[in-house]
């Protein structure tokens, strides 16, 4: 039985599919891209720090042209200003602007570029964020504001674009995987007094655990799933 499960999860979920991985972190992008390639996808990695609609449209269109089209867009992006842990009252206005507003606009532009690619034939978008946004994190108010804004934007986009056959979902991952700069952040501890969480005994890694879920979300098997949030924390907070 276990062998059967392993066999199934190792199957190529994205054979012949074309994926664009747009991230603000080269390490994150490379890890997710390698996992999607393992599932048979042809993948191009691009920098998601879009400063304009035109830049996002052009970059995503170039990537799709190189791939011969696009079926899946994976997006994860936060400005560097959002990735520094510090109390809100010490945050300069310009850093708040960069973390909250520039971050959201870059996400918006990426979604709009994805819409231009996928609106005719349908496809999937997966936005990746820090799972701590579901419970909040001290010192990271701007990032958590951004991340929850992104997660909600995905829901609204799913409602608007479902008629085009577009599915949009959100995946939460460990903060240190989301951005190396967050490795030392003060993440809230689960109020669990039993065996130390996460329940699975480890934090899901990017190229296998996380990429497998994203591959499934991009596959036909997830054709009925949109607007949903998947928190891949290994069974830590067990939300939403």
């Amino acid at each position: 039985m276990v062998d059967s499960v392993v066999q199934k999860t190792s199957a190529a979920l994205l054979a012949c599919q074309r994926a664009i991985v747009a991230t603000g972190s080269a390490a994150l992008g490379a890890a997710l891209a390698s996992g999607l390639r393992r599932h048979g996808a042809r993948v191009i990695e691009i920098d998601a720090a879009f400063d304009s609609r035109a830049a996002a449209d052009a970059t995503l269109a170039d990537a799709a042209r190189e791939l011969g089209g696009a079926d899946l867009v994976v997006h994860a992006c936060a400005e560097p200003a959002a990735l520094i842990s510090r109390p809100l009252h010490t945050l300069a206005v310009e850093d708040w602007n960069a973390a909250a507003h520039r971050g959201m606009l870059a996400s918006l532009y990426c979604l709009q570029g994805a819409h231009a690619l996928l609106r005719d034939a349908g496809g999937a978008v997966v936005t990746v964020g820090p799972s701590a946004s579901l419970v909040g994190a001290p010192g990271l108010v701007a990032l958590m504001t951004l991340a929850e804004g992104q997660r909600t934007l995905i829901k609204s986009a799913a409602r608007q674009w479902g008629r085009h056959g577009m599915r949009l979902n959100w995946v939460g991952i460990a903060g240190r995987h989301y951005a190396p700069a967050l490795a030392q952040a003060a993440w809230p501890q689960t109020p669990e007094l039993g065996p130390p969480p996460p329940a699975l005994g480890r934090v899901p890694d990017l190229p296998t655990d996380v990429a497998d879920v994203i591959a499934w979300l991009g596959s036909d098997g997830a054709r009925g799933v949109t607007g949903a949030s998947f928190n891949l924390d290994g069974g830590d907070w067990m939300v939403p």
Partner: protein
Amino acid sequence: MSSTIETLAESRLLSGRVAIVTGAGAGIGRGIAQALAAAGAHVAVTGRRLSTCDATLSLIADEGGSAIALEVDVSDRAAVDRAVDAVISRWGRLDIVVQNANAGGDSSHPIALEEITEADWSRQARVAWDGNFHCAQAALPHLKASGRGRFIVLGSAFGLHGAAMNPIYSALKGGDRGFVKSLAREWGSHGITVNAIEPAAMTEPAEAFFAQNPAVRDMFISMFPLGRMGEPRNDIGRAVVALCSDMMGYVSGQNLPVDGGLYTAL
């Protein structure tokens, strides 16, 4: 008789405390300001147009409440600082901030996500998100000094389930959730609670819309388990009073739907 009893009960809850309510010139903000004043708080009624704040002030004065009106655009940090300074100058303390301001009519206009521009985003976000940021930074020293500070953000169920009609507004309200949960963890050591309320209330724009679309009104009202939309002062305002009172002093980091049972997915 019952209203006298209610007024007396309310007046004991926040007696002597000082509150700022943003966006209090109409609708839910006005109802919150009225309820806080009825509960004994001194209230700074703030908004972008002083004339509407003055109207709220008159309603509070009619009930014997204590309030001042201040013209404040929460997207302007200097204006927020001046408002806090004015409150401290007048009453010597600040215990409660209710960040209710949003970009008025912009938040209720349908828009296709693929057509949103930076200007569309900024028009709403500079009020909602920057309002949170500016009010929090300006108020922190005084909320710490209070010993029982309260910071409340007015969210929306749209921030929970998304909204095809208005993706900007729903994203902003979703972001409020991350803001509140994180700031609650950050400010807990100061004895300050940080919460959000997601209200459903009949406001003037909603009444105008429903007057033109009675079938939509009937359909919408039928969704409420309690069979009606909330009333800004008595339903939403009193929930804010409760959150600000000592009775709810151990509640923080929460997003509380005050919506007649409409949204039960939390």
